[in-house]
C-alpha cells in the first residue's frame, strides 16, 4: 500500500505537531548532513578552523582576566577557570541563537521549492554549535589541569547540563526562527537583547559582586535562566570559594573545589528547557505551514 498524505486547510495542533515529529524522525539522515554541512563550512574555509574556534574564547579569557584582575583588583582565585566555565556555555548560546533565528529566512529559496522538515534548519545550526561547544570544553579541561584545580564527582552533572542547554537553545531557536519569518524585527531585537543578556549573566564577574550590592541586580540574576545555567557550570568546574564582602570589595579565603550544582537552578533549568523545546517545536510546526508564502 502506497503512503498517503492529505493536506487540509485546518488541522488540529496535535495532528500538526505529531506529523512534524514523524517528519523529523524520517529525515534523521538529512538532519545529520545539514549539521555536518554547518560544521564543514565553519572549518573548511580555513586550514586551522578548529584552532580559530578555540582561540577566540582563549583571548577573551585573557582580556577579561586582565580587566577584572588588574583594573578592578578582583581577588577571585583561578579566575580564568571561573570565566571560561561560563563563557564557553554562553558562546554556544550567544552565537548559535542568532544564526538559527535567521536560518529559515536565509534559506527562503530552498524552502519555497523543496518539501522537507524545515525545523531541521534551525535544529542543525544548534546541533553543529553544540558539537563545537563540546569540542571547546577541551580548553576548559586543559585550564583545570594547568591550575591543578580539583574536580569531583559533581562532573557527573555535566552531561545533564549539556543536554538541557541543547534543548533550551533548540527550543528558543525554533520559536524565534519561525517568528522571524513573520516579524523580521525579531533578529534585530535579538542582537540587542543578547548583548544586554550577556552582562545580566554572571560570567565575567562573580555573582557575589552583585548580590551584596543591588537588590534589583540580584532579582535579575534570580529570574535569568542563563544565570541559573551558568552558575551550575561554574559550580561543576570551579566551585564556591568562601567570600566575605569588605567595604564594597569581595575578598576570598581558604581553598575550595568543585561542588554539585544547587538543586533549584539545576532542576529549574532542566524543566524549563524541556518545556521550551516542546513549546518551541509546537509553535514552529504550526507556523511552518505558512512559511512558503511568507518567507
Amino acid at each position, binding site marked *: 500500500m*502506497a*503512503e498517503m*498524505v*492529505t*493536506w487540509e486547510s485546518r488541522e488540529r495542533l496535535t495532528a500538526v505537531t505529531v506529523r512534524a515529529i514523524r517528519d523529523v524522525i524520517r529525515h534523521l539522515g*538529512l538532519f545529520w*548532513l545539514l549539521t555536518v554541512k554547518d560544521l564543514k563550512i565553519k572549518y573548511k574555509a580555513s586550514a586551522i578552523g578548529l584552532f580559530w574556534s578555540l582561540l577566540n574564547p582563549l583571548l577573551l579569557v585573557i582580556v577579561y582576566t586582565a580587566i577584572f584582575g588588574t583594573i578592578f583588583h578582583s581577588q577571585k582565585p583561578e579566575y580564568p577557570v571561573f570565566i571560561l566555565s561560563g563563557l564557553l556555555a554562553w558562546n554556544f548560546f550567544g552565537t548559535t541563537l542568532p544564526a538559527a533565528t535567521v536560518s529559515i529566512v536565509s534559506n527562503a529559496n530552498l524552502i*519555497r*521549492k523543496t*518539501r522537507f522538515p524545515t525545523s531541521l534548519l534551525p535544529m542543525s545550526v544548534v546541533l553543529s554549535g553544540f558539537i563545537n561547544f563540546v569540542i571547546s570544553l577541551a580548553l576548559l579541561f586543559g585550564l583545570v589541569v594547568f591550575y591543578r584545580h580539583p574536580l569531583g564527582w559533581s562532573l557527573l552533572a555535566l552531561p545533564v547540563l549539556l543536554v538541557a542547554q541543547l534543548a533550551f537553545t533548540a527550543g528558543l531557536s525554533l520559536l524565534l526562527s519561525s517568528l522571524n519569518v513573520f516579524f523580521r524585527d525579531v533578529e534585530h531585537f535579538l542582537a540587542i537583547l543578547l548583548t544586554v543578556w550577556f552582562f545580566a549573566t554572571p560570567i565575567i564577574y562573580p555573582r557575589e559582586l552583585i548580590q551584596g550590592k543591588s537588590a534589583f541586580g540580584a532579582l535579575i540574576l534570580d529570574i535569568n535562566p542563563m544565570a541559573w545555567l551558568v552558575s551550575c557550570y561554574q559550580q561543576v568546574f570551579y566551585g564556591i570559594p568562601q567570600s566575605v564582602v569588605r567595604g564594597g570589595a569581595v575578598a576570598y579565603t581558604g581553598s575550595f573545589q568543585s561542588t554539585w550544582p544547587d538543586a533549584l537552578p539545576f532542576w529549574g533549568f532542566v524543566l524549563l528547557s524541556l518545556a521550551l523545546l516542546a513549546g518551541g517545536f509546537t509553535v514552529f510546526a504550526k507556523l511552518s505551514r505558512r512559511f512558503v508564502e511568507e518567507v
Partner: protein
Amino acid sequence: MTEAAIELVDVRKSFKIYQKRHTTLKEVVMRGGRSSYEVLPVLDDVSLTIPKGQSLGIVGRNGAGKSTMLKVISGLMPPDEGRVTVRGRVSSMLELGAGFQTEYTGAENIYLYGALMGLSRDYLRSRFDDIVEFAGDQVSRHLDNAVKTYSSGMYMRLAFAVAVHVDPEVLIVDEVLSVGDEAFQKKCLERTAELRAAGKTIVLVSHDAGAVKRFCDRAVWIEGGKVRADGRPDDVLWRYQSSMASGDVEAAARAPERRPAVEIEEIHVEDGNGRAQETVRSREPATVRFTMTTTAEATVNVTVGVRWINADGVVVMAASQHRGMEAGIGRGRSTWACAFADVALAPGTYRLEIAVHDTVDGSAINPPHPQLKINVLGEPSEGLVPVQATWTEPSYGVGARALTSHRPGAG
C-alpha cells in the same frame, strides 16, 4: 476503476499581498494585529482527480495559478479551504538544484540534495553510479570539484539526475524540461517518457505545447484560478491558444470539441488459429483485434498503431497503420485487426497499447482504452528479442593453441 493518485477537492488558495513587504512589530502594535493587505485569490474552488498512471499537463498564462497548484499538491503549502490527497512517494521538480550547496563538491551535493528529496544515504550510495552516469561525462569528470565551478548546464544535469532517481510514484515537474541545451532536454524528455511508460503519475506544467501533446494523456487549462478546460491535450491546448489569440476566455472554454474523440472499447489477442488467448508463444503468429468508436467526422490526418510494451516501459514491437493501408479513421464504430506474422518478443509480460497520432504535428491523441496484459511464452533469453543463434568451434591461427590441449586427459 484505477485508484486516484492525486485528489483535489474544492481547493481554494489566496495570497495576501501586503502593502509593505513585511509586517513589522510596530505595525502589529499600532494596528492591533491587523496589517494592510489585499487578498488575491489564486486557486478558486478547484477539484481535480488524477488517476494513478496518468500524465497530466497543466497549461495557462503566467499567474494563472499553475505553480500554486503544484505547490499545493507537493505539500509545500496547505490549501485555505478544501483538501488535497496524494498517494505514493512524490518527487517535486519545481526548481532544479534549489538545495545545492555551491561550496560542496558534486559528489557531496548528490548526497545532500538526495537527502533533501527524501532519499536515504544507503539508497543514494547504491544508485550513486547510475546518477553520475545519467549526469554525463562532463559532470563525472568534475565530481570532486565544488559545484560553484560548474557551468549552469552541468548544474542542471546533476540536479535532474538526482531528482529522477528518487524513483517516485508521483512526479511533479514545473517548466524544468525547458532548461538546458537540446541534448539535455532530449534526455529529460526520454526519462520522463520512461517514467510515464512505467506507470508513474506525472503532473507537468509547461509552456511548450508540443511537450504537453507528446507526453500527456490529459491536459487542464487554468485561468484565473479556475479549471477552464479538462480533457484531451490537443483539444485543451487549442482552447487555451485560441483564448490567448482572441482574449475571450469564456468563448474558448465553451467552444464545441474540435477533434474527433476516439475511444478504444475492446482489445484482445488471437493466436494463429483465430482463438482468443491470454498468452502467446514467442516466434509464432498472433493477431491483435480491437474496436474503436469516433464521435465526430471522419478524419484522414491520424494514424493508428499497435505497440507491445515490456515491463520496463520499452516499446519493443510496434506496427503503424502506414504500412499496407490508407491512414485515417472513419466515423462511428469500427473493428480493426493487425496480424503479426512473427511475435519476435522475449518471454515476459507485455502491455498492449493502441496509439493514435496526428500525422500533421506528430502529437498523440491517446485514446482511452482498456489495459491488456499479455504473457509471451518461450525459451528464456537475456535480450529484448528471442534468439536463434548457433555457435561454431573457434579456429586458431598459427602459433595459437586451442583450449582442448590444456584440458586434463586431452594431451
